[in-house]
């Protein structure tokens, strides 16, 4: 069956940018405003929906946060991290979505980069030459 199957209603078209989560968002590289890698986009958090209640008339959920960190583990091996353990990058930081997801802020201050900062401050910065450009 091809995408142009006659038995289906024609595809919807939209005025805005269309993003299929698996296709255009998940597992993409996230860069900060200076083009420095922050993390991969491991999962998305969308605004909450009630279970077992008719959703007719409720506004559609929206993307609240990009997720990274522990959620990668649960995506691969199953299970579900408690909400408090999620590492979030708020959607409002996103400026562009193409081959990569670009943020409008510096990665330095995001929770998602604390392991990088920890390794830098406690190990790599202490090795001679670590702060210099290669020659």
């Amino acid at each position: 069956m091809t995408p142009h199957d006659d038995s289906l209603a024609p595809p919807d078209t939209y005025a805005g940018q269309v993003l299929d989560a698996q296709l255009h968002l998940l597992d993409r590289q996230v860069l900060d405003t200076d083009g420095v890698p922050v993390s991969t986009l491991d999962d998305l958090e969308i605004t909450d929906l009630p279970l077992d209640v008719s959703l007719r008339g409720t506004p559609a959920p929206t993307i609240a946060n990009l997720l990274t960190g522990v959620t990668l583990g649960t995506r691969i091996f199953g299970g579900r991290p408690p909400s408090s353990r999620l590492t979030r990058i708020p959607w409002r930081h996103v400026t562009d979505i193409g081959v990569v997801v670009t943020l409008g802020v510096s990665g330095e201050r995001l929770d998602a980069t604390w392991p990088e900062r920890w390794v830098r401050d406690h190990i790599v910065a202490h090795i001679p030459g670590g702060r210099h450009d290669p020659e």
Partner: protein
Amino acid sequence: MILSDLLNRPVLDAEGRTLGKVLDARFVIDGAPTQLLAEARLAGLIVSPHTGTTFLGYERTDENSPWLIAAFLRWRHRGSFYVRWEDVEMLTERGVVLVAAYARRSAALSTSIGI
């Protein structure tokens, strides 16, 4: 909630018959504008009767090369369709339940959009 809670969930019609699994979630950036990018609202779900794992989106684009791989993946996803969010009745433990009068739409992505 987390998106992976939605992906791969069974999709049921109003009578409780299984139609397939959620293959992907389609978002559109046309919501209320915020500081940098407008909100991305969930526009609908792509449902596949055969597999819950999407692969590369060949089923949704005109991408046709390499031909052999494109053909194989199209076949794996034969019968997949798109339902608007408005056609979702409720979320239950069993899966996503659609309204009685839901419409099966083509899941095709216009190749010029979404880039």
